[in-house]
């Protein structure tokens, strides 16, 4: 049918548009020539130089460390926050959620600037700590966003049942609520990690003293001079993100299937 072919054609067109640049980067990461247009043969040398390049290695190191620390801390704070916010009265809840989602809704440049000014005002020199604080701050809302809906859909009596059976409130949270929301906690963690890995604008404004991350390094490179290793970096990043997303996706698919079977 004509309709179906048109649809398929359109899908392919858009897919081409979306993936062309990415695929070009990946293909050229194996190009044995610095040219961006001519193929000079297959090679893995850019991957090797990438690993040995001090600038890039430093960027990768900081990116991973910040992402890891930020996601761990934001997950802890965010989980406790979600549990607490869930039981608040509607008005308080609404105010707090509105403020919480400000970093999400605000332009990242405004959020970045606000951090910058804040750190200057309190006299914190820009560097690792400031960038970490900024990352934790913009990660927490996403953790809360991953967990809060699940809390709303839980049977509200399970917590009371735990109390009824003799558990103290903290025990009840630990033994009943946390296990039930654990999948969402993990999703929140993965989400925070992914966002931190990828961040540019906020990191750009909150870092200093040689602390950098991958995105910033790439930005500086585009202004100073492109190194061909950048293609290798892109490929590695692409695969990493792909894997992370597959994991997140698989988990959420499994969860929706599981919920279909519960009849309480």
């Amino acid at each position, binding site marked *: 049918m004509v309709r179906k072919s048109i649809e398929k054609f359109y899908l392919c067109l858009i897919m081409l548009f979306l993936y062309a640049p990415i695929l070009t980067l990946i293909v050229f990461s194996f190009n044995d020539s610095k040219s961006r247009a001519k193929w000079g043969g297959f090679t893995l040398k850019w991957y090797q130089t990438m690993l040995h390049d001090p600038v890039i290695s430093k960027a990768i190191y900081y990116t991973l460390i910040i992402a890891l620390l930020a996601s761990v801390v934001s997950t802890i704070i965010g989980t406790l926050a979600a549990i607490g916010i869930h039981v608040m009265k509607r008005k308080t809840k609404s105010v707090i959620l509105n403020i919480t989602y400000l970093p999400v809704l605000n332009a990242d440049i405004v959020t970045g600037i606000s951090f910058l000014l804040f750190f200057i005002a309190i006299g914190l020199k820009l560097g690792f700590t400031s960038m970490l604080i900024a990352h934790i701050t913009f990660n927490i809302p996403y953790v809360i966003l991953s967990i809060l809906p699940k809390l709303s859909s839980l*049977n509200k*009596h*399970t917590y*009371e*049942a*735990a*109390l*009824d*059976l*003799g*558990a*103290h409130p903290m*025990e009840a949270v630990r*033994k*009943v609520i946390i*296990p*039930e929301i*654990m999948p969402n906690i993990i999703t929140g963690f993965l989400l925070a990690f992914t966002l931190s890995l990828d961040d540019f604008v906020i990191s750009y404004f909150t870092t200093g003293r040689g602390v950098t991350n991958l995105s910033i390094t790439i930005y500086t490179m585009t202004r100073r001079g492109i190194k061909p290793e950048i293609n290798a970096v892109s490929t590695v990043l692409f695969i990493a993100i792909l894997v992370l997303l597959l994991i997140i996706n698989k988990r959420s698919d499994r969860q929706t299937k*599981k919920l279909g*079977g*519960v*009849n*309480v």
Partner: protein
Amino acid sequence: MEKNVIIRLENITKRYDDQVVLKNITLDVEKNEFLTLLGPSGCGKTTTLRLIGGFEHPDEGGVWHNGKDISTLPPYKRNINTVFQKYALFPHLNVYENIAFGLKIKKMDKSAIDEKVQKVLKQANLVGYEKRNIDQLSGGQQQRVAIARAIVNEPEILLLDEPLGALDLKLRQEMQYELKTLQKELGITFVYVTHDQEEALTMSDTVVVMNNGVIQQMGKPEDIYNEPVNAFVADFIGESNIITGIMKQDRVIEIFGHVYDCVDKGYSINETVDVVVRPEDIILLEPSEKALNGEVTSCIFKGVHYETCVITEGFEWVIHNTKNFKPGEKVSINVTPFDIHIMKKMVEEGAYE
């Protein structure tokens, strides 16, 4: 406090935001009885139950357990357990772990826990289901796990919040019987909440009828059924025909201009009262001159009986009998004096007559 009273609610008032949910309730629950709180949605019965369980605190008044004031004592410190409306089973634990939960909190040792859990599994007919996941159980099975999880802790009082609501009719009737037997076996007090009056009448030693945060009547099932104190109770329990009548004198009532003998006295002369007649107490005969005559409007087969509707003087009577009448047939309404119940006229909030 009397020796036999295990729970006393005294002058309890409870508010949610601006709404008063319980108005000055006083209630005694006796040891080892099966007491049911019965009423429509929003009457306050669940709130009352939660006050006993410790999930709510009274705004005024107090809750006493064996003479001790427990009004603000948290649930985990009360020797009372609850079976929740939707069972509230822990989804991440299997059947055994759900049941053992309370015992583990008390830090009992493994063999003691195992002994108690096995015993309760037998009582609840769940032997063999220990390792099952909650989402693999049927509604009836989940319900048993909820009961098992509560009683394994050997509470003095078991609270049940409309536990049979989600089950189908046959299962519900079986479970009513099982719960009653269980209560006798365990020898503990059950406080049960339901909106189903048949359930309440079947299982309870004492029924407390509630409406709008006020206790309407409290007593044995037969007394509540036969001697409702007001129109609400009469209407809520069983089916009834409620008519306005005039008390001519002691033991004589006038309805729709017809005079009948009855057995109640103590009302003022010509006092306007509510008259209740149960559908199964009405006898339909051929129309006669002195009797209250009317016309059949419908007759529906209900299995156990026919439900016949007869209209007289603008009022539609509901009658249960075993005869099949045809719409349009002319009949007369007849009742024995004993089956006419007189009640003080009640000003009903939100009644549509």
